[in-house]
């Protein structure tokens, strides 16, 4: 059976709302418009305007209201139309949500989910293409999940909603319409994925490639190409950026002795840098080659199609880096 990521998210919301009357959805266009990207389709009809709350375009305000309601026992799911707009509300995500349980020595936990599309879409320009994985992933008190497939989307969103702590849930617009095979188990309403565990999407022996969100698909495609060239790549779908599954990553690198990290965000202080540091810390002696980072270009996102393509990782970038790490090609820098 197949299911789109959109339907996976939609059904996860639906089931969790059915299971717990304290769960509600709030955000711009989530109700009458059925969601800017239709993730909340049908839920207004089913659960009514008290539980599917359309807001004005005031992110700081409604994120704060969401957090306050979570202080007092509700379980809000706050949709940002895209995560770019979460910057207007970031103080509440960090200072009001992530830190409260600690500052109150456990009195005020904050069971809230902030979700929405993150990272680049297609042709939406510099202000609408940023990946917030590394930023939110740096903040103790937050959990940061990054689904790739429909199974991820269902299992992680359900886990996020049930979790007693604030979760930042980073989706990808370009995956919403993609279909993935889905098991009967994953379709069960009790289904849930563990938070903080990566998934080995494909086993391999020669090189480890880490990726999250849309880049998992690219990495898998790269692995197919590499296989033809006799390189067996192990693909790790991170699923969670915080907690980061250092154990799974390091175990894989200890087996393959080589690592390429892939992400669409800006490179500096990115997820790849962290993974590199984690492996250097824990498995330095196992590394047979320098870790390579594939990431978004270190520039604001250009609109023009050709430049935009150059600004984000392509499958051939992953393949090339993997081959380099396996010493199948000589590194050479082209200057643009």
């Amino acid at each position: 059976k197949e299911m789109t990521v959109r339907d996976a998210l939609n059904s996860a919301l639906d089931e969790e709302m059915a299971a717990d009357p304290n769960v509600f959805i709030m955000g711009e266009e989530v109700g009458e418009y059925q969601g800017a990207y239709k993730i909340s389709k049908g839920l207004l009809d089913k659960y009514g305007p008290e539980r599917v709350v359309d807001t004005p375009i005031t992110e700081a305000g409604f994120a704060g209201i969401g957090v306050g309601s979570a202080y007092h026992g509700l379980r809000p799911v706050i949709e940002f139309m895209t995560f770019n707009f979460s910057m207007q509300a970031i103080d509440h995500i960090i200072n009001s949500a992530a830190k409260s349980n600690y500052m109150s020595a456990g009195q005020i936990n904050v069971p809230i989910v902030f979700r929405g599309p993150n990272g680049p879409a297609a042709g939406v320009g510099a202000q609408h293409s940023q990946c917030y994985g590394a930023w939110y992933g740096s903040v103790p008190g937050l959990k940061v999940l990054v689904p790739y497939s429909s199974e991820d989307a269902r299992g992680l969103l359900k886990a996020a909603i049930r979790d007693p702590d604030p979760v930042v849930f980073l989706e990808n617009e370009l995956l919403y319409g993609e279909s993935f095979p889905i098991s009967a188990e994953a379709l069960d309403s009790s289904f849930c994925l563990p938070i903080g565990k990566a998934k080995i999407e494909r086993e391999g022996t020669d090189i480890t490639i880490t990726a999250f969100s849309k880049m998992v698909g690219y990495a898998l495609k790269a692995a197919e190409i590499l296989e033809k060239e006799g390189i067996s790549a192990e693909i790790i779908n991170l699923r969670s950026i915080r907690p980061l599954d250092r154990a799974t990553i390091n175990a894989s690198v200890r087996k393959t002795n080589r690592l390429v990290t892939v992400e669409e965000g800006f490179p500096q202080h990115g997820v790849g840098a962290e993974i590199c540091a984690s492996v250097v810390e824990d498995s330095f002696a196992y590394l047979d080659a320098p870790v390579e980072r594939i990431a978004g270009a270190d520039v604001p996102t250009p609109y023009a199609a050709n430049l935009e393509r150059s600004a984000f990782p392509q499958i051939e970038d992953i393949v090339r880096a993997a081959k380099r790490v396996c010493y199948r090609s000589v590194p050479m820098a082209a200057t643009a």
Partner: protein
Amino acid sequence: DDSTTITIETSVPFTGHNCEPPSRSIDTTPKELMTFFTDMALMRRMEIAADSLYKSKLIRGFCHLYDGQEAVSIGMEAAITKKDCIITAYRDHCIFLGRGGTLLESFAELMGRQAGCSRGKGGSMHFYKKDACFFGGHGIVGAQVPLGCGLAFAQKYRKEDHVTFTMYGDGAANQGQLFEALNMAALWDLPAILVCENNHYGMGTAEWRAAKSPAYYKRGDYVPGLKVDGMDAFAVKQACKFAKEHALKNGPIILEMDTYRYHGHSMSDPGSTYRTRDEISGVRQERDPIERIRKLILAHDIANEKELKDIEKLARKEVDEAIAKAKESPMPDEPELFTNVYRKGYGVESFGADRKELRATLP
């Protein structure tokens, strides 16, 4: 003759908040009427062509069209100079044209080509024309309001006699940063004019669902405001003239422009799930800004139906030619990926997705 004075009345009276509204009566000339018609016809045609280009996949991503709202740009430009600043949100194509930008620059930008006003790097939401004091083109709802007050701050700092028009939507009108900026603008008497283009919907949300008080001209509370028929270019002109004088003397003022967007919010929105087709066609028939001017021209015998149709045909031709030219314009050169990250790059290295394959020294 072209410059005879014609006195006309605005469609409806202005409504003031903490200020005495200007008169409904305004002088114009045949020349001005013809210019309004010609310019609005061109804007309308540009937006309709953009719609087609989007559908044929030559424009990507977002594309927010302005058809229906043309009178706001036209009336405003008629009241001010190119040293007065304008800043707006993502619905910016016609504002750019109003400031003197060209069709070619617009279409090329929409298609991501070198000839675009931002050399293809900005896209639909990020048009600028600094030499005519047009400061964009901003994608984050509400952000342009403090930015606009900052332009006004610079004008006042330099003791200029110019003002800034900051345009925002009814949806944006609830943003907190607007209230923060307005307070400072009022405290410091900045020559800041906030132009709320109330097209009655923020995406799919009707104004009253997003605002407890959708009387946007009053939302400045202690700041004066004026409600204006934004479908009437002359009302807009009168209001902007009034506002400019007010702002130079007394600081900020809000103009609420009652207007309407014919298209959906952006290209993914059919624009018909949250409003009725009757509502749209009603506005088209009774309040269309171009038709209003057409009627005035005909009523005053300045041109006849055919001449006006010819102007519209010419607009279509100009648009088609500009599109043809834009299509000929190449995509930006690959090295443009790394230009303009900074004004001054200190010769630092920057990286592409595969940093060992693609890197550049920043200019």
